[in-house]
């Protein structure tokens, strides 16, 4: 029978234990947070391989006077009225379906039945917001250029 080992003085041993516990917990929490933080940040994409937000849709003469033309691949309508050109989005502001143009009556959404006036204002819901009207400019090459990052008021017309 060997005698029980003598206890070391209480204070240093307790503080050593506390140090190891605090350091260990800190390391564990910091490591886990770092890993999860990196993961969470990484799933937010920084580079998007999406079409540009500003693009040409054609020359003015491609849109006959008095016509309403659907540019399907850009999901918008080009109006050529006597006052000038204007562009209305074809994406329903309710839940993102493409609206159909009904000449003289405005737009109708096939998904949930919203209807809009020709200038984009809501006629009947459930859509709560008007179809946005996008800024339009004439490029140096004589093309109509739409900028979907900028919306304009209902009176906007481009003389071309």
């Amino acid at each position: 029978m060997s005698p029980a080992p003598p206890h070391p003085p209480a204070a240093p041993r307790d503080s050593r234990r506390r140090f190891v516990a605090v350091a260990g917990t800190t390391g564990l929490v910091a490591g886990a947070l770092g890993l999860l933080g990196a993961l969470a940040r990484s799933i937010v994409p920084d580079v998007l391989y999406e079409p540009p937000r500003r693009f040409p849709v054609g020359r003015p003469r491609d849109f006959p006077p008095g016509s309403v033309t659907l540019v399907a691949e850009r999901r918008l309508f080009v109006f050529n009225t006597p006052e000038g050109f204007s562009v209305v989005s074809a994406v329903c502001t309710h839940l993102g379906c493409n609206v159909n143009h009904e000449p003289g009556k405005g737009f109708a959404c096939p998904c949930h039945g919203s209807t809009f006036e020709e200038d984009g204002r809501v006629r009947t819901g459930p859509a709560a917001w008007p179809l946005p009207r996008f800024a339009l400019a004439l490029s140096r090459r004589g093309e109509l250029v739409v900028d979907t990052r900028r919306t304009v008021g209902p009176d906007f017309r481009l003389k071309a």
Partner: protein
Amino acid sequence: MRTLGRRLWLSVFRVGWPRTRPQRLRAMLSSLVLHVHPTRVRAHVLRPSYTLGLGLVSFYLFVILTVTGLALMLYYVPHPAAAYRSMKDIEYAVTFGMFLRNAHRWAAHGMVAVVFLHMCRTFFTGAYKPPREFNWVVGVLLMLLTLALSFTGYLLPWDQLAFWAITVGTAIVAYFPVLGPQVRYLLLGGHEIGQAALLRFYVLHCLVLPLAMAFLVAVHFWRVRKDGGLSAPPDRLHRRVLAWPHLVFRELLVLVLVLVVVHATALLFDAPLEEIADATRTPNPAKAPWYFLGLQELVHYGAIFGGVVVPTGLVLALLALPYVDTHPRGVGVWFAPERRVANAVFAAIAVAVVAVTVVGTFFRGPNWAWVWPW
């Protein structure tokens, strides 16, 4: 030779074919699969009319979905340029590919319906009351996971149905206050449904959500044991029978029935595949999968009301239910008279959910206008 065979059997299963009572008890404890069960089980819960086997059927469908899904993964390519063609390959250039796809699709639809019915059964028998509150919560999460799995799987065929259903679904997400648009951006990996969105839905559908489901299923089963087995009325708590053979063979019988029904449906009906996804052309009417048509019908009355307020309210009410209604009476029997009010309220909500789903499915035509189905 006989002896070698017997030694091999015993090395794997530890017990022979159980014939005596001690052997039957030991058999239940000696196998990984069987030990999920107790050795003896309440006679009350073995009556088919009590549980209708709905939880078990949900689990079997999940297993069938995992197996058929793995087979489909060998041919499916999650890229917009290839996804639709690989679906055509699965249908026409893979032996039994069409059958596997049909089985996967119909089992998925079946699982949504059966999980919903399982929840109704649990409610109408008062089985969510203490000590089973938390397992009800796990069950609600499992139902949400089932819907999320169905929704993410819906985009993968990359046909018109898929594309526009996900367009509508992710637009609803963006209506959620504060974080909605950011969550949609994360879900799609951008602003529109394209390559990034397809890959994200694919990873969620094939890996993240099934793993979460498997984990929660394990918790769900484990809690059934820890909460003292399935619920029963107080006077029937103590009559128990051996799990082998009474429980084990009933479970196998249900498995046979599920397999027969899935096979028959997959052989008789082909899963739909419309034209390839086209962002420039919205089909009219554009409809979500049937289990979201109730939601789409509500969204028709207002996106915030139908897409956010009602579904969030329902889920929160379901999660809170077992902590609000803790009265221990009426457990273990269908439609207990002491629970008349609770049963009436739940039945009214369940009927309303079914009703808006039926309206959205059969009574809505082009531009979401009212049509008569006949």
